[in-house]
């Protein structure tokens, strides 16, 4: 296929403080986008905790960092070969790390464990990830908590930056900081704030939100989603809920239309 020429690839990254529900919203967005079987959706779990895999019912066989670490072992054994061989090896292994199910593909970044500077490998991996995202209509990145990742690896090609927070001052401050850092580090087209687990509209209205952040909307606390999190049920198997509906409105506000009204659960 040649999606790159047919349709512009949308790359959505969800960033914010730890514990505000980035993974929950990431899985919910993947669910919303994948309802249209014509959409090719790539979910990238960039959080070392690999929670998105669980939320999408995916068993991770290999992560990007597994690929990286295997490669580093080859370097140590002096079996890596020249640049062309290295790139072809990484490209092959990365495709092997891509978990595909229906119209959804999944890639886990994993947890870097090998010390030492392997900047060239990281750059090659970044390029390969960028080339993979170009094959999808939508890429949803569940980013690591905090600001560190904004500058690194997977976030460079982001087109839509979603800052996720609860109503806590800490959460909102982190969202504001990420927005500021991202302004110079990430060439995104749109950015906005989603308040997660809001108890009521009046509660959202009562909090002074950072002026630099465009509020896309608030996603209410949702018992169905809470139970799914507790019981490790794939979000792709969940019915429509008010929270999913609110999130889709946020997506529409930022210019990402989650089309399609057929049942969820096309993939993983």
């Amino acid at each position, binding site marked *: *296929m*040649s999606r*790159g*020429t047919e349709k512009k690839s949308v790359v959505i990254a969800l960033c914010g403080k730890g514990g505000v529900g980035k993974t929950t919203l990431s899985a919910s967005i993947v669910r919303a986008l994948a309802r249209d079987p014509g959409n*090719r959706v790539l979910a990238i779990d960039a959080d070392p905790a690999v929670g998105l895999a669980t939320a999408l019912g995916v068993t991770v066989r290999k992560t990007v960092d597994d690929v990286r670490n295997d490669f580093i072992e080859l370097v140590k054994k002096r*079996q890596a*070969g*020249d640049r*062309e*061989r290295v790139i*072809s*090896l990484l*490209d*092959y*292994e990365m*495709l*092997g790390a*891509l978990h*595909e*199910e*229906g*119209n959804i*593909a999944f890639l886990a970044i994993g947890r870097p464990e090998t010390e030492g500077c392997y900047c060239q490998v990281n750059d090659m991996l970044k390029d390969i990830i960028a*080339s*993979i995202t*170009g*094959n999808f209509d939508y890429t949803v990145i569940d980013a690591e908590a905090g600001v560190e990742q904004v500058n690194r690896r997977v976030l460079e090609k982001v087109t839509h930056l979603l800052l996720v927070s609860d109503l806590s001052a800490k959460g909102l401050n982190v969202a504001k900081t990420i927005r500021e850092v991202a302004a110079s580090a990430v060439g995104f087209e749109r950015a906005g704030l989603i308040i997660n687990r809001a108890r009521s509209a009046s509660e959202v209205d009562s909090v002074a939100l950072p002026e630099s952040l465009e509020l896309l909307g608030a996603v209410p606390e949702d018992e169905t989603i809470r139970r799914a999190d507790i019981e490790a049920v794939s979000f792709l198997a969940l019915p429509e809920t008010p929270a999913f509906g609110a999130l889709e409105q946020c997506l529409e506000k930022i210019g990402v239309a989650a089309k399609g009204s057929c049942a969820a659960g096309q993939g993983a």
Partner: protein
Amino acid sequence: MNLFDDTIQQLRSFLDEKKASGGLRTMKVSPSDWPAGEKGNIVLGTDTGVELGNPRDESASFMVWTEKAGDVRDGAVHIVGPDLSESAGKSLPFGKAVILGVEGMDEENCYGRHRALELVRYDLNLKGYMMRAVSQYLREWSRVSRQAVADGFSFAALAGALAGMYRKIEYVKAVEFVFVTSSAADVRSLGETGSRVERLIGAMNKMAQEMSFDCGTCDFTDVCSEVEDLRNMRKNLGGDADVARH
């Protein structure tokens, strides 16, 4: 130079054996007119018509060359097992061997030319065809889209496109292809033939990338002691080529 002539003989034996058992079809390459795709494109699982050499399946792929032009049946495509149109919806083990007739190879240009020939397949961009390969492991994994299979993409078409690229290289004079999809055992058998190729390439890589010429500690003394061309390459790089004594 005749680095790979033993391997080519083994390939011939493999093909003769398959022919004798009725498991070999030979045809000519198709014209190289398949529309181009985009470099690096992925054929996703949902769009895949035929998958070849998935990492979970057996896979073997290598390229060899010879200066004995008569040893290469130019434009021939040998197929052991089903072609793509006969495999819709399947994931098959996959073996591929490319035999090139070349000229002008010597100890100085051999390594660089071999690398150039090895990289040709990575430049292949065909609509509905995805290929990822690791030369180090002789593995090649490809997917052909459902649309490409429906449009008639075949091994002869793939070979035609590859042949067109190889023929653009001035020292390539003939191109022949072997594709194996019949069984994991057959692909494994092809891979055993190819394993010697990887040893020879490994030795060449080592010579090109390392300054050490200590045969006593080298992992490739087995192939160097057998293959005169490798020893000559090594001499040419400044080593003593005392490998024959080890």
